[in-house]
């Protein structure tokens, strides 16, 4: 069986419990072969449920999903041979060493470390000095690297990474994404989920997801370009007072805290000096106003508001 898409999801739905809590609400998307696709959304958006259905761990209530043309319900045996899955929670054997874990998962899939060493070489050399250390004793970043090695060792065609960078330090996060880019070059399709918006721009295409629904699917660049208004970053000595003042200002369309700045968009024309005078009159000092390019997060916030 061959298919144009690596992953094809059609109106997938899953509800939990007696309350019929909708975790995944008729989600549809597809991932091209060799693509790095990101599911971006806050905690509880339904990302893990989608992952578990696609990796044949959870039965969908409704809808279909195909991995490499194989149905996740009917052909689950075939899928289990060809995918790599790295759950959000570290799930390797803590009492086995790095090397033993890797060898175990290689043999589980009927292969050897030597056979696919080229796939993991870049990553494995970084943890190799500790290969006789037990997995439970590794640092967070090293655990992630080992988990990625174990998910890759059988040369999967599709790799599922569920929040691989949650709880990992910024340097390791950056390294991790660089590793993903190199994997993409090996023709491995990657579906990755993350709650971090800054990581979204590193994907080929992303789906923004909230409350089990996909809000938008596009390339990160297109999403940013689609942002309709000019955004301004405004800073003052008191953030809370600043936002309160801005919300009262008639021309302000939207205003929210964004790091140490407030991101603001305006209706129609905007005059720098007029706003500054207004804010000073409100008792604010050290006022700084500058135009900024929108980010994925701005786009996401805008989608949520509509």
């Amino acid at each position, binding site marked *: 069986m061959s298919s144009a898409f690596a992953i094809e999801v059609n109106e997938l739905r899953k509800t939990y419990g007696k309350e019929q809590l909708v975790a995944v609400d008729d989600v549809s998307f597809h991932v091209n072969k060799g693509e790095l696709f990101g599911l971006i959304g806050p905690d509880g958006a339904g990302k893990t449920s989608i992952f578990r259905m696609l990796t044949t761990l*959870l039965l969908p209530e409704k809808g279909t999903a195909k991995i490499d043309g194989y149905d996740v319900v009917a052909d689950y045996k075939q899928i289990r041979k060809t995918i790599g*899955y790295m*759950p959000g929670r570290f799930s390797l054997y803590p*009492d*086995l060493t790095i090397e*033993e874990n890797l060898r*175990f998962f290689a*043999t*589980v*899939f009927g292969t050897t470390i030597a056979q696919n060493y080229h796939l993991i070489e870049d990553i494995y050399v970084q943890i190799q000095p500790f290969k006789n250390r037990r997995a439970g004793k590794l640092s967070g970043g090293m655990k992630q690297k080992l988990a990625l090695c174990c998910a890759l060792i059988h040369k999967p065609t599709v790799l599922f990474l569920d929040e691989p960078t949650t709880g990992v330090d910024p340097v390791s996060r950056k390294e991790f994404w660089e590793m993903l880019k190199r994997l993409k070059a090996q023709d491995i399709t990657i579906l990755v989920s993350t709650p971090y918006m800054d990581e979204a721009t590193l994907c080929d295409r992303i789906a923004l997801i909230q409350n089990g629904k996909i809000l938008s699917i596009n390339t990160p660049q297109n999403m940013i370009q689609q942002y309709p208004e000019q955004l301004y970053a405004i800073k003052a000595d008191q953030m809370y007072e600043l936002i309160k003042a801005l919300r009262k200002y008639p021309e302000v369309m939207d205003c929210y805290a964004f790091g140490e700045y407030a991101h603001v968009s305006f209706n129609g024309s905007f005059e720098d000096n007029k706003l500054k005078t207004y804010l000073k009159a409100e008792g604010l000092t050290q006022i700084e106003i500058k135009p900024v390019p929108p980010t994925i997060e701005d786009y996401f916030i805008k989608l949520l508001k509509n």
Partner: protein
Amino acid sequence: MRTIRFLLEKEFRQIFRNKAILLLIIIMPVMQLIILPLAANYEVKNINLAVVDHDHSSYSQKLISKITASGYFKLTGYNASFKEGMKLIEADKADLILEIPHGFERNLVRENHQQLFIVVNAINGVKANLGGAYLGSIIRDFNNDIRLQLLPVSKFSGAAVIEISSSNLFNPLMKYKFFMVPGILAILVTMIGGFLSALNIVKEKEFGTIEQINVSPIRKHHFILGKLIPFWVLGNVVFTLGLLVSWLIYGIEPLGNLLVLYLFASVFLLAILGFGLLISTFCDTQQQAMFIMFFFMMIFILMGGLFTSIDSMPDWAKIVSRFNPVSYLIEVMRMVILKGSGLRDILPQLGTVGVFAIVLNAWAVWNYKKRN
């Protein structure tokens, strides 16, 4: 086969890496087997006896010294009134009161008839029962002595007497250790096998490692077999150690064939491990598994025929104990070790436990879901 081989390799690695648990598995049963049979004593000794003697005669003295000389009783009170004796019972200082009436010796000699009064504290049922019985038989003995003394030997003497002589088959000296040790060994093997297997799959669930197994092409029965075999081997090791201890320390040598014993133990282990794995597939946390296993262990042990004979249980309990694999193990251990039963004698038990093994393991495989 290859899959099972590396699953086993992994399990054994994990077991041998956890040195503390491994030592506990090996040393604890040995220690318990050395200590518990010494404590689980069915002979009742040191029964506290208070005597209320209204007679103060040489006969009453003779009776008291005969009782204390038996070794079963400790004289904790020698009182003048029954009330004082009762106080001792209330203070838990006496288990029994023997009241010797005034004129005990005189009436016995003159009228050939006298009564004694025994009061038993029945809070501890076993002690009370046995204490009362011991005291009764000592007094009977005393009575016979007196009759021999008082009645001159004559051709008219006495009515016909039935004398009973008994012989204890298979355990001639009635050593309680001979039936306790095999029973305790059976329970230890059950506990080791049951708890280890009950906690194992659930541990993988808690650690999340089961996720990685579930997305892999590993077959369900391979996974369960990979869990079953290591604990089966460990169970047999513990069983062997136990047999060694009972031979070296208690001098118990199985009369029957060792192979028969091992055959039964092997099948039994499969059954109890299957039961543990079944619990493991139902539970989400080790705590849940622990409590469920504990619940069943209590039933297995108390209704297994070690402490109370199954034959004397009510009918419903007999039916329940028929589903108790441990009762079969205890029974077969005693049969083979003490009685020298052969394979043919234990076939019914072997068949039943074999059915348990098949059903429980098949259920465990069926109930272990790789997806939900």
